[in-house]
């Protein structure tokens, strides 16, 4: 299958947080091959100690994101031919998160911020109540639906330079979730959400760099969601609803 195609020259980040370096591997090229396949090939055939993370392999779990030729990507859904530069591929861990080892990062800070942004549904009803009718075409619902299909892959988080500069910044994914919930008419604490995103790490720190929206593999628009939160908080500050 690899006939006609030259081997890939892959450099992979090895090591832990502070100490580490790129290591070079030669990987046979195949017609159907994702970046994740390349990494798995290295672990299975060249260096059994290479560490990385994946689960679903189809773009649903958001565990496999890495930095590929300098850009954050979900590796299980990134075909090699789309990102390869000549025959070269450079793969590193996601930015902005602590590295556990090689290509695996600690995602806890990302999820801590998700919770800190009140990205958690606040129920008003219980399992004993009927399910609330919600018109799918209502303006609010349309807005909520736009941001709902996030797989928490942290690609946006890794792409954002504001996160790099400001470790307190909640980041695009958490804020996108907060905005989605804010527009969920069933949520019982929409004011609390606005409070949570108005602190010193809140939505107002976003400089609209737009990398989040550009790189989100699911074509979500955290940039737009964050702008929505900024508007909502300002409106409330002027006493216009909230």
């Amino acid at each position: 299958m690899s006939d006609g195609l030259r081997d890939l020259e892959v450099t992979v980040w090895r090591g832990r947080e502070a100490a580490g370096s790129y290591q070079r591997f030669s990987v046979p090229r195949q017609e159907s091959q994702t970046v994740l396949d390349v990494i798995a090939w290295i672990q299975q055939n060249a260096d059994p100690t290479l560490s990385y993370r994946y689960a679903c392999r189809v773009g649903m779990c958001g565990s496999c994101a890495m930095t590929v030729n300098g850009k954050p990507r979900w590796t299980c859904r990134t075909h090699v031919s789309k990102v390869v530069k000549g025959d070269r591929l450079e793969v590193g861990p996601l930015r902005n998160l602590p590295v556990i080892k090689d290509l695996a990062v600690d995602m806890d800070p990302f999820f801590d911020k998700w919770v800190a942004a009140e990205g958690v549904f606040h129920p008003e009803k219980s399992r004993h109540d009927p399910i609330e009718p919600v018109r799918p075409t209502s303006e609010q619902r349309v807005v909520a639906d736009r941001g709902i299909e996030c797989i928490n892959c942290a690609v946006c988080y890794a792409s954002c330079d504001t996160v790099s500069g400001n470790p307190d910044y909640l980041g695009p994914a958490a804020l996108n979730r907060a905005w989605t919930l804010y527009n969920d008419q069933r949520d019982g604490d929409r004011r609390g959400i606005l409070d949570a995103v108005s602190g010193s790490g809140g939505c107002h720190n976003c400089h609209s760099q737009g990398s989040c929206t550009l790189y989100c593999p699911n074509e979500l628009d955290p940039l737009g969601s964050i702008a929505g939160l900024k508007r909502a908080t300002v409106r409330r500050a002027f006493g216009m609803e909230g």
Partner: protein
Amino acid sequence: MRPHRQHPLWFAFILHRLSGLALALFLPLHFYVMALALNAPEKLDGFLHWAEAPLVKFAEFGLVFLLAVHIFGGLRLLALELLPWSGRQKTLAATAVSLSFLLSVGFFLRAI
């Protein structure tokens, strides 16, 4: 430049930041020069003559340019943040605004 930064919105961001920074650094200077009017009017006059020199003219051009870049960048941001527009409209508006601004600045500078 790091690959993840190579896209228009990030360029817009860094342009806005650098112009803002440059303006903030220039501003005290500007205030100082203006304050000369009170203490040493002749120095101010000398300064204004000096301002006719080509190099200084060029610097001035740079300053007006920075200011314009920053203002329109800022207006773009404010529109993006405060008006619930769709992404496409925002891009269109931004392009329109920046084009018109470039034209007008060019026009004014030539007139000087």
